[in-house]
Each structure stands twice: as C-alpha cells, then as structure tokens.
C-alpha cells in the first residue's frame, strides 16, 4: 500500500511550497516577500513536472495494484489542469495582498511586523487549497475524499476573509463558512449512511458491495441511495449547483476579485471531481453499469435548475462580480451534463470544460483585478463602458473571455461546451442538451454586455474614472488566458486524449497496462 505514496509526490511538492510560502512570508526582506508569487509559481511548475513523471507507464502497475481507486489515472489530468489554471491564478494574485501595508513599509511609515502581514499565509493557503484539489483526484476512500475537500475549502474561507479590508468581504466569509459547514455536515451524513449501507469506506469495495446487491435485489438499497443523494447534495455546495448555489453570488461579490477568480475555479473543480468519484460506487463505470434512477433524476434536475437559475439570475445583475457569480453557477449546470453523461465521453468533457471554464473565468477576473476606481474595485458593469478608449487590451481580453464563457466558436469555451453537448447527446440526454442550448442563448444576453460595453459603448462619467492598477500580474494573467483561449483549441485532440487517459476506469487501465506489458515483453 505504501508504494501508492508515489502518486502523492506532486501533492507533497505543493505542500512543501505552501509551507515555504508561509515561512518566507514573514521574512524581513522585501525581496523575499515579493518573491512569494514566484515561489508559488515554481512550486506549481515542479508539481506539474512531478505529475508527468509520476503518472508514467512504469507506475501503472502500482496504480492498478492494491488500494486502487476508481479513476486511477485521474491525477494525470487534474494536476496539469490545476497547474495551468493555478499559474494563471498566481499571476492574478501577484502584488495584491498586503499592498497598502507593503506600501507603508516602502514609504517608511511603518516597520515590518510579522503579525500584521498576511502575504505568507495567503500564498500558503492558496497552495494548500490547490493541494487539496489535487488530493481529491486521488481519493481512494471516503475519509480521504472528505479530508481533501476540506483541505480545498478551509483555506478559501480564510482567503475570502483576509482578501480585503471591507465589510462585504467579512460578510462573504461568514456566509461562506457557515453555509459551507452546513454542506459539509450534509455530505458527511451521506458518507455515514453510505458507510452504513456497505460497511466499508473504500470506494472500490463499496462499489463491489453495491453492485453485488444490485445484482441480487435489483437495486442498491434505499440507505445507499439516500447516502448518495445526501453526498451529492452536499458536494453540490462545492460545485455551486442548485439548490446549494445560493451562497455563490454573495461570496463572489464580497471577496476581492483575485479571490473570486480562485473561488470560481478551485472548489468547483473539487466538487466535480468528488462527484465523479462518489458516483463511481454505483458501478456505472463497469460495462453496462448505469446510475440508479433517483440519482440520475436528481442530477438531471440539479443540472437544469443550476444552469437556468444561474443564467436568469445573471440577467438582472448590474454588479459585474455578482453577474459572474451567477454565470459560474450556470457553468456548474453545464458541468453536471458531463457528469450525467457519465464515464468516458462525459468525464472527458467535464475535464476539458473545467480547463476552458477555469481559463475563461480567470481571464475575466484578471481584467477586473487590473482595474480600480481610486482604491476600490470595479463594481458596476457600466463601469466597463468605453473601456477600450483607455485600455483597449483589457477591453479585448474581457470580450474574448466573455465569448469563451458564452461558448462561442472558435474559442476554447465553445469546444468545451461542444464536448459536453456531444457527450450529453450520446448518452441519450438530448433534452438536457437542448435546455443547455437555450440557456446558452439566455447567457448571451449578459455576456454580450460584457463584450459590448467595453468595446462598443461610450465612456460615461462613471466609467471615465476607472484606471489601471499599477502592478502587472493580473494583466499578464489576462493576456496569457486570452492567448490560451484562442490557441488551446489547436491542442484539443491531445487534451481529449489526455483526458480520456485520465478517466480510464480501473479495468480499462488494467487492460491498457497488460497490453503495454505485452508490447514490452512481446507476449502474444
């Protein structure tokens, strides 16, 4: 069993990075403190390199060995996705936390006091949360899954609270924390019921029990169903899926843009991955396996509600972060289509979509993070009017990322959505896809405002006072994201191939491994 620790090397790297950040953050040297983003960046890059080294054909045997997980190769995809988006997020964060305090120190008005600084722990939390996300993908049992999800979430509560010295940030943190705790209780109770129904915490064993029971009695039993439903509903909080999506607008609005960018991606990805894993206990990754109807119906209803409520909620908003929050809710709905579509095409689509959404989301918030009115953030969407007159680059970045989030060809978002739709159609959920299509059209309404106001609108007196932030990190992130949104479709095939590898089930991976062994040893 211990050889499985091999797969945790990337997570260890990130953990080490996090600890380093926490330590370096209290350094007296300004240069060291300033280098924290670079440390985080390097950590992520090393984690990426480690992941490609860890998930190699040679380690396949360990992956399929004892203590196997339902999706043994998932980390191979999730870690690069997390790293790509993580790197972009690091750029967005760069220079933001503790800005005024550092300014005071630089001006000689204050002396450095390790108690007053929070930069170190901010980056540490940032990396810890990412680490949690990576760990989620590797979860073999419920305990691990629980801990990984908590590791993903807990730092974000702190990040929201310390993101800016504003009442709204604290309100957001409060709501986020308390509602988060509620959701944790819900899915934990679900876990308890699952455990009660099967007598094991390990996902694979649990699957075996449930499959055997379904073969005997025709169903997995109401206790297991109830446990699954509760788990799904609890995890829906992480995903910001209806009906547990309500916190998202408030929290996203309250947190600083930089943190919102983070919140838009990391917990959501964790939720999606956790859903994929927890649903594996129904045995639907096996040949001929399918979701029990109550689960399917619940997911279906959640998907429809999530995308619809998200999109129509966004229509009414005048504050841009709140609007983007609703938009991120709707994206959870689209992601649920992929989950419903199931192992194979559906999961591939989810992973590609997570990447597309993560980049697009980061790009919009990167633009918002690059702008300020006085010392405050950009609040109203009308503040973006006529942005191109002063900052054409940011205006274009906003438009392109909105286009990608809308799913407009040929940007990356389109391909993500297309794969989701294809998976949906292929799994027989045409109606769901049509509903998603209608929702896309509804979303065009507000995304177009994000395109139209910066590019075609005329600057108003309100928007005239919008200026660019002095530090370039977010701008760089916006530029990088936009480039990725435009160019990544060219790599779509390899992205799909990687994702397809990533979602190979244990049996499939075993077959692959055996055929590789056969190739290496030239066996018949």
């Amino acid at each position: 069993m211990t050889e499985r620790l091999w797969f945790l090397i990337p997570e260890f790297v990130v953990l080490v990075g996090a600890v380093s950040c926490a330590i370096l953050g209290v350094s007296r040297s300004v240069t060291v403190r300033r280098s924290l983003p670079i440390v985080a960046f390097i950590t992520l890059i090393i984690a990426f390199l480690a992941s490609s080294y860890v998930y190699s054909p040679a380690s396949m045997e360990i992956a399929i060995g004892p203590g196997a997980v339902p999706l043994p190769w998932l980390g191979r995809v999730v870690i690069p996705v997390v790293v790509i988006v993580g790197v972009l997020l690091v750029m967005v964060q760069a220079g933001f936390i503790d800005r005024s305090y550092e300014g005071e120190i630089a001006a000689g008005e204050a002396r450095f006091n390790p108690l007053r600084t929070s930069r170190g722990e901010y980056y540490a939390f940032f990396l810890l949360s990412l680490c949690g996300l990576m760990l989620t993908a590797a979860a073999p049992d419920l305990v691990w899954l629980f801990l990984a999800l908590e590791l993903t979430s807990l730092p974000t509560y702190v990040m929201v609270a310390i993101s800016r010295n504003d009442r709204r940030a604290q309100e957001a943190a409060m709501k986020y924390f308390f509602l988060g705790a509620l959701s944790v209780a819900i899915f934990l109770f679900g876990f308890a019921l699952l455990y009660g129904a099967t007598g094991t915490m390990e996902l694979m064993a649990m699957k075996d029990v449930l499959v055997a029971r379904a073969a005997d009695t025709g169903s997995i039993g109401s206790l297991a169903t109830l446990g699954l439903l509760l788990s799904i509903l609890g995890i829906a909080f992480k995903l910001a899926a209806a009906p547990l999506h309500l916190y998202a607008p408030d929290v996203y609005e309250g947190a600083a843009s930089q943190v919102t960018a983070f919140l838009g991606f990391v917990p959501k990805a964790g939720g999606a991955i956790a859903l994929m894993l927890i649903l594996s206990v129904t045995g639907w990754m096996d040949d001929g396996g399918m979701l029990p109807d109550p689960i399917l119906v619940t997911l279906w209803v959640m998907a429809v509600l999530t995308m619809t409520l998200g999109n129509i909620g966004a229509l009414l908003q005048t504050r841009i972060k709140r609007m983007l929050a609703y938009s991120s809710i709707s994206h959870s709905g689209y992601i649920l289509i992929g989950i419903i579509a199931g192992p194979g095409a559906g999961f591939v689509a989810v992973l590609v979509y997570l990447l597309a959404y993560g980049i697009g989301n980061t790009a919009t918030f990167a633009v918002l993070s690059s702008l300020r009115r006085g010392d405050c953030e950009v609040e109203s969407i009308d503040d973006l009017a006529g942005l191109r007159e002063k900052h054409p680059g940011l205006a274009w970045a906003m438009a392109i990322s909105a286009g990608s989030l809308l799913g407009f060809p040929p940007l990356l978002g389109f391909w993500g959505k297309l794969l989701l739709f294809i998976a949906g159609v292929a799994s027989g959920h045409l109606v769901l896809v049509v509903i998603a299509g209608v929702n896309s059209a509804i979303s065009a309404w507000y995304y177009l405002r994000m395109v139209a106001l910066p590019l075609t609108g005329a600057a108003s007196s309100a928007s005239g006072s919008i200026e660019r932030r002095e530090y370039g990190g977010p701008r760089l992130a916006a530029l990088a994201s936009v480039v990725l949104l435009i160019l990544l479709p060219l790599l779509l095939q390899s992205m799909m191939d990687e994702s397809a590898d990533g979602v190979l089930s244990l049996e499939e991976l075993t077959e692959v491994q055996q055929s590789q062994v056969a190739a290496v040893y030239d066996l018949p």
Partner: protein
Amino acid sequence: MTPILTFIPKLSMSAPAVPVSDAIISPNLSWAGLILLLPLVSLVLCGLCAAMRVKSKLPAVITAASLAGAFVTSVFLYLNYEPPGEVIPLLDWMNLTWGEGRFESFTANFSLYIDSLSLLWIMFVTGLGTLITIYASEYMEPDLGKGYSRFFAGVSVFLFAMAALVLSDNLLMLYLGWEGVGFASYWLIGYYFERPAAVAAAKKAFIVNRIGDLGLALAIYLIWTTFGTVQYDELSTIFAAGSMNPEFEGWTTSAIPFLLMLAAFGKSAQLPLYVWLPDAMEGPTPVSALIHAATMVTAGIYLIARTYQFFLLEPVSLHVIAWVGGLTALLAATIGMAQHDIKRIMAYSTVSQLGYMFLGLGVLTTYGAAYHVFTHAFFKALLFLTCGAIMHGFAGQLDLRKISGLRHMKGWRITAWTMLIGCLALAGFPLTSGFFSKDAILAEAFVTQGPGFEILGWMAIFTAGLTAYYTFRVWFRVCAGPASFEPGDEQHDDHGGAFHPHAPRFAINMVLVLLAVGSLVAAVPYFMSNQADDRLVGGWVADMVHDSPARGGIPGFSETHAVHAIADSHEAAAHAGEAAHPTLFGMDPHAAMYWISGTVGIVGLLLAAWLHLWRRSAADAIKAWLYSQFWIAWLPRAMERKWYVDEFYHAVIRAPLWILGHIFYVFDRFIIDGVCVDGIARIPRGVARWLQPLQAGAVQSLAVVMAGGAAIILLLMALFMQFGWFGGQV
C-alpha cells in the same frame, strides 16, 4: 397524396416525346434579329447621348433610323416569309433538362417565331414607331438637352420589347416583351417625373399591368405543367395531335384561357383593368399615340390571337371576352362623351375601340379584330398626334371648350383636316378604313351563336353611334366654328408678351399627312384578293391571320383541319354553317351592317354637328337640364366621373390593402416582435425577478432555501422510490 395533387390532370407517364413540329427552323434568317437588335443599339446610343449630355437632335435621328431599319427588315421578312411558320433561333436563354420525358425539360430561348400574325403586327408596329419617332423629334424639342435622350431611349426600349413580344417563339419571351412594354410605358408615362400626376399615372399603369402579368405568368405555369412546353411550335404540334390528348381535359385547360384573358385585359385596358389607360395620358403625346393607342395596347389582342387554340377549347372564355369587350366599349364611350380634355376623350375612345376588338375575338372573328387593330393603329395614332400638335402649339391646352375654329387659323390647316380624316375613320364613316374594320366585327356578332350575342351586337351598334358623336364633338368644337383660343398653363419659351400658338412644322405635318393617308388606305387590304384560300372573306388581313393559331376565328373558314379537331364541335355550332346563316333585316349580316353602321355613324355625326357646331348653346342647355333632373342627373355625373371605377378600386382594393399593410406592420412590431419575441425574451428576466427574494441576504434565509431545496429533492426522490416510479432500480 394531398388533394392539391389532383388538380393536375393525370398524365400517362408514357406520353410520347414532343413530335417534331411543322414549323421550319430557319437559322439562316437570323438577320431578322435586327428587328430586335436595332432598337437595342438605339437604346445604347441614346443612353450614351444622355451620359454625354448631347444637346442636338441626334437621339431622335438615331432612333428614327434604327426603327426605320427595323421596319425595312420586317418588310423583307414578310417578303421572304413562307407559311406555315418559321422559327429563328437567336440566343439561348433558359434551357433546363433533367430527364428524357416530356415534363423533364424547360426551354425558353430568344428565338423568333415568324408567321403571318407576327408579321402583320411587327410591320405596323415598326412602321408606326418610325413615323411617331419622326413626329416626336419635333414635338420633344423643348426638352432638347434635358430629357430628349431619355425619351428616345424609352421609345427604343418600347420598340425592342414590343418586337420581342410579337416575334417571340415562346410564351416566356412573350412575357419578357409583355413586361418590357409595361416597363417602357412606365418609363415614358413618367417622363415628366417631376410632376406628381405623371409619376402616379406611371406607377398605376405598371401595377395594373402587373396584375395582368400575374395572369400571364400563371397561365404560363399552367401551360407548362399541362403541356410540358411553352414554345408555340410545340404547342401547335400538340394541338395538331388532336382531341385524343389527355391534356385537353381537366380544369387546367379551362383555366388557361381565363388567365390569359386577365393578362390581355390588363394590357389592353379592358374592364375591369382599364383604369390605367386614361391616366397614362400624362405622358408626352407621341407616347400616347404610339404606346397607348396604336401598338402596346393591342398586345392583348395579339396574345389572345396567338393563343386562340386555348380559347377554342373553352367556349365560355370566348363568351366572356365578347361581353367584356362589348361592355367596355359602351362604358368607355359613355365616359368619353362627358370629358372635356381631348386627349382623355381619345384615351377613352381607345379603350372603347379595344373593346370592339375583344368583342371581335369573342365572336370568333380574329380577322375582324386584327383588322380593326390595324386600321385603328393608323387613325388613332393620327388623332393623338393631332391632339399632340394642338397641345404643343397651345401650351398644353387640351380643353375642347377653350379652343375653337382651328381650321381657320394660319398654319393649322393640315392639323385640322388630317384630324377630320382621323375622326371620320374612328366614327366609322362609310368607306373609311374604320368603317370596314368595325363592320367586320359588328356583323359577326350577329352571325356567331352565343349567349346574348345579338344584344351585344345591337349594343355595339349603339356604341358606334356614341363613338361618332363624341369623336365629332371634338372635331366640331376644336377645328370648326369661330376661331378663338386660350393658351394652356405650360411654360413656353416665349414668355412675356402675348401668347402665340406654335403651328406645327414640317416633321409633324408630314407625319400627320402620312398617317391620314394611311387611315384611308388601310381600307384597301379589305379588298385585296385572298392568296391563301379564296373561299375566305376579308382580304389580306384574313390571309395574314390564316397562317396562325388564330385561324380558328376567321369567318367562313371551315376547313376541317387537324388543328381544330377539338374546337370543331364548338366552332361548327358557333358558325352554324352557311345554310343556317342568320340574317339581319333579311340581308346577309355583313351587307346589312354596311347600311346600319353607316347610318348610325352619320346620325352620331349630325348630332355632334348640331350640338357642337351649329347650336353650341343647345349642348350646354341639355347638359344643364340633365344635371338639374334628379332622376337622370346621376348619369352624366357618373359618366364624367368615369363611372367611379377609380374610386371603386381605391375603396375595394387599394385602401383595404393599405390598411392591411398598416395593421400588419403594427402586428409585426407589437405582436410578433413585441409580444412574442421580446415577450419570450423577457420571460427569463421575469422569472429571475420572481425568484430574487430567495436571495434575501441573511445567512439563515440562504440556509433555509438551501436546506429546503435539498430536503425537497430528497423528499421527492423518497416519494418516487416509495411508489416505485423508478422501475425495479431501487
């Protein structure tokens, strides 16, 4: 199969391919294309003149020369002509083939079909066109350098389109000419485009014609779907194949003549589509003479003559034509009696005379109709041109009450006397050309059997009297009596000082004299011997008609020809044989008609002379008396207001459509776009607003909604599981 399918007659799929037609394909006659080409060349040159702002009479010279060339070509073509007909391919237009069968190709090329009918028409069209162009070269002088080139370009377009219409070898090219002459008419009526009345008249002409064109288009569709071709020679072949053809049954063959009729009525200004023609007088007078009197308006006659076989298949259509023609003749004559504008009187007389021609077609005398077209072309052009000369000379004055004694004025003699000749011909004064041509129609109304044809005949005779009256009302008022005039309100060059009428000069006078001679000489063909079949009556014109599809309408032509196999029964009944030939006052109708119509004409003439020359005050007294008697006052009033037909159309068609347009527009903006599209677009926002309270702000309220939502889902699932709605899965 939908019921619609059954409207198309069943065709045996093994219908034989179209047999080779009896028309000769004569590519070596392609020089005949000059008739079409020359006006086109002239059009281009006139266009160049316009672009280069030429200020001389060059455009007129070019046009006259090219039209003369076309006329000469037509004459040569006539001299080279050999029956039964020749097809001259010029240029491909539409050739579609998608299979081997009869209904698997569609061909309509720019090819000429030369038979005597088209030759008859093309010769007088180009001939009159040339003369009128010469006349116009002087008439349009005031516009030199302004619209002069545009005018002659329009004339060229017209001649091209008319030639295409007459010479085409298929219905589609005919349609091209048909719309082309309508367009030329639009162009030329709207020549004074800064005058709102002219623009309105032009538009009206085009649109009313379009309604007719619609009929023609539908007829073409029907003909193709029924017969699989729109080419005359192939159609003739099909007709020649006799009555065994399955095509000759079903509703299509009955509908075709009515649709064609609609087209003809539109173009030739018959009831109910005649309203555009009087308004068309807003155009320059040469245009009125050329297009709206002599040539274009006879296209309807030509069309029916050309497609006469279809009409013979459906006797009712001929009856309708006869009645419409007769009624139009009467109605237009009554309106003509009450007008004061001499050009308008001539316009209504044109409508009336066209009515005669249709009457002729309806009572199975295509020859009479064609002959009347021929003579009418001369004398009506002459009359219009004299009106034009007067208008030109008196600054646009056209009111017959304001000009008098023209024949006494210096320089106006030729105008006055040529007008007299024209009037005599129009009135059907014995031995003029109009006398013979009208008789050919009138008599046949008594010969041919048909519903109420005899009444129709008497009505037509009565109309002839009215015609004589209003024609000479003009002449006696304008040309006879004491010399006096009031100038019109048109700006002329010599403003300042007293107004002097411009007497017409050489070009106008020459044309007037030539046309006057023509009006008289046009009687001669009636007495020329028949070359084709000496059993025929009617001379040269009958000869010309004989070699055409219209030969079914030549009196006395009873040759049992395969072409008429279908029509025979009807024709035999109609013409009822020589033995049972009806009589009129104990005489042969043709002979009797000489006397009757002559007498009626003279009576009308004398009445006009009494009221408008000798006792002009009596006319006014009668009119005043008529207006004062309430029981009869409506009659002259209605006559003066053209029987309220324009108002009728306005109220029944135009206004409702206009209102409908507005309703649609409002519907489009507020119902479809506003309520439906925008309304649907508003639904998401509405729902969102309705759901907004869920996001109430306090953490508990969020928790309630979240926990409540989760609980609802759990409960629903539990219920579903309980009731086993998920099959055996749980």
